[in-house]
């Protein structure tokens, strides 16, 4: 309990620091948000000042920060200068897209990565092992912005197997239930109107971005599984089990795997952060309407509130995931409790 409390106490300066960074760093970006709103053909100075006032950009900067902080504590992240929507509602609108992409990428990399890793560990120093380790290192070194383009070039453009970009065929109307299209397209109203087509459309749009985003996690998971399996297989109790004549299958799947899973799960959770990083590039390439694309676009249109709010929410999410991982680890690993 003390451990948990301490963790949360440690959080406060970090969160405050992030708010500070978000606010000031972004405020230094050159370029005038008011002018950005105005567009191409000029504006008279009186109206310019009026707009500045309505946006609260004429106050002293410290006062602006104080207002910002008060609002954040109240859960109010401000409104987008460009669209006039609240930052929170824009985030909520886009987060499911990123979550869906991230989860599928993570599932993809897990269900392929773990078996490969186990197999490589069992066939240590075989050709397969070497091949897998080399392939995973290549995957780990992959510039995903290039990888995504190559995937599009091959599968969409040359072979015509998958759509080029987007989340679903735009002709389908999908009412929001969970925000995840793979679930929403299975709602009764959709099924009655269009059958399974919208679902498959969502799947086909998801394939390439998930592969692009999942490549690095796949490599990491395969390597991690392999090494933690090797470590466990070398432990005394496994040797004892072997000596007792337990079947190899039983040893691998019941004893070794269960113990090897702890570090694997930790890795998985820590990959969440890198998935979000990867999502920024992947979403840009595949025009995936998620938070990565949202933030990159806001930077180019100097939408301060969105950048502030967006970066803030993303880092909060990552911090809380990390805390959760720590807690899970704490619960799973009795040694740490003392």
């Amino acid at each position, binding site marked *: 309990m003390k451990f948990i409390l301490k963790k949360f106490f440690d959080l406060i300066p970090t969160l405050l620091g992030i708010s500070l960074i978000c606010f000031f760093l972004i405020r230094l970006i050159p370029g005038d948000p008011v002018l950005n709103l105005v567009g191409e053909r000029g504006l008279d100075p009186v109206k310019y000042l009026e707009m500045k006032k309505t946006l609260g950009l004429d106050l002293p900067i410290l006062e602006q920060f104080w207002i910002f902080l008060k609002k954040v504590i109240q859960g109010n992240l401000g409104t987008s200068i460009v669209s006039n929507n609240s930052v929170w509602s824009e985030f909520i609108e886009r987060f499911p897209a990123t979550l869906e992409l991230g989860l599928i990428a993570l599932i993809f990399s897990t269900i392929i990565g773990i078996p490969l890793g186990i197999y490589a560990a069992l066939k240590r120093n075989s050709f397969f092992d070497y091949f897998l380790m080399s392939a995973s290192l290549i995957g780990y070194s992959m510039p995903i912005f290039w990888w995504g383009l190559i995937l599009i070039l091959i599968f969409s453009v040359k072979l015509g197997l998958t759509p080029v970009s987007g989340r679903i*065929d735009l002709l389908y109307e999908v009412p929001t239930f969970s925000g995840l299209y793979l679930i929403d397209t299975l709602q009764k109203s959709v099924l009655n109107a269009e059958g399974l087509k919208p679902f498959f459309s969502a799947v086909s749009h998801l394939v390439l971005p998930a592969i692009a985003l999942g490549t690095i996690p796949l490599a990491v998971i395969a390597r991690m599984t392999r090494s933690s399996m090797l470590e466990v297989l070398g432990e005394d109790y496994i040797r004892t089990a072997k000596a007792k004549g337990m079947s190899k299958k039983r040893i691998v799947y019941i004893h070794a795997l269960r113990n090897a899973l702890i570090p694997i799960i930790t890795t998985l959770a820590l990959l969440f952060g890198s998935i979000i990083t990867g999502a920024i590039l992947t979403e840009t390439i595949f025009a995936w309407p998620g938070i990565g694309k949202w933030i990159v676009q806001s930077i180019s249109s100097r939408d301060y509130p969105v950048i502030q709010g967006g970066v803030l929410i993303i880092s909060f999410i990552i911090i809380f995931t990390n805390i959760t991982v720590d807690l899970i680890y704490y619960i799973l690993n009795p040694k740490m409790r003392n």
Partner: protein
Amino acid sequence: MKLVIYCIFVILFSSNAQAKNLVYCSEGSPSSFNPQIVTDGTSVNATAATIFERLVDFEYGTTKIIPSLAQSWEISKDKLTYTFNLRKGVKFHTTKSFTPTRDFNANDVLFSFDRQRLKDHPFHNISGGKYEYFDGMEMGKIIKDVKVLDPYKVQITLNSPEAPFLANIAMSFMSILSEEYAHKLQMTGKMNDLDNNPVGTGPFIFQSYLKDSVIKFSNNPSYWGKHGNIDKLIFAITPDASVRHQKLKTGECQFVNEPSPADIVEMKKNSKLTVLQDAGLNVGYLAMNVTKKPFDNLLVRQAVNLALNKPSYIEAIYLGNAKIAKNPIPPTIWSYNETIKDYDYNITKAKELLKKAGFANGFEAEMWTLPVARPYNPNGKKMGELMQADLAKVGIKVKLVSFDWPTYLKKASQGEQQMLQMGWTGDNGDPDNFLHTLLGCSAVTSGSNYSKWCDKKFDQLVTEAKNTPDVKKRTALYKEAQKIFKEQAPWVTIAHSVVFKAMSKNIQGYKIDPLGHDIFTLVNVE
């Protein structure tokens, strides 16, 4: 094995888009759904070209002015009073939030003009209270008064004769909004909705918008005019040109906006696609700031004109899909002066002029490169790199600079640049819209004269032409003005680009709009 996987993919993922729907891959997000507020082509396509109409409109595919919401009009002898007879029985859209109880009438016209014209109008300050086009065209100064004579008759009086007035009110920002809808929103306190959930009289009804992703429209069943058979019109927002091309090929969209010059050859080869092309109503140019040294020197400006190898830009940047420009107006606009002789590409002569001007060893200068892709300059950065190499040959060392688009425009209109890549697409097909708007003395202060070049003789000619109703006289004046422009060389005119539109074979009846908008009113999907 490969074949099996392929088959499974095809069965699972092939989407058979139903006929009668048109997915249009557009290049960006609209900045608002009120055409009075917006100035960019992207937003105009999503509003004025679909949802709204004006008193008069341009005939499809031309710049000829035809009756629209006004059935006819009379112009007084002194050219100061315009009386419009409005069309009867025109219905506004019925949407989720609004059901009209009356037909379109004079109150709607009055409302649409007054919102922009009168600073104390209740809707004037909604969405920021800025009407760039209305102010930029000086409509507030031109219009003296708007009066409702009877429910179907509106009278507009002007302060002074204005030759392009009808063309001005055919422009997107003069779209007619519903006064009844506005009134209803005012009662419920949701005045912002007027600009977010638009209601118009046009051929398409606004359905929904997901920011940066998709806009959906449906057919207006009670449209008064002729229209094609499109049921659902969908704008798929796709900023990257190569992605638009790929989506067109895979059938994810049937029409793409602004295809990249690089893809045109392949599109033309593809038997499933139709590529239309037309000379654009545009000009791309390099402006030299005459208030900055050494470009105050006429010889230097002429030398730069001589040093740039324009044909190589046409080849590399426009991939041959443009004409070398010699005048500031494109040849498709009346009063284009054929007799003007352009500066040739001549390095030795350029060096001589520089020597005469006292820059035998050249000089250093900054050039600003266009940060966005436009038809008149699809790749400013690359064009800058080519110009950099050309100017180096005559001893001018160029540093390339660029900013994000709004900053670029702001700094440029304040005149901070030495050399600046810029361009223009005509708004109404009148030479005034180029020569007075871009090169007149008043444009130096208002900003759009990026050379800050104010020539008394030139300005006199274009101002006189503006207030002269007779087209013949105007033509003569504009031709004379173009001569002065060429001699004084405030710009290096670079290109008038060809505009391309690519679509699936089953799209019929589409015509290229010379003003650069995409209009689907009369389009049929087969």
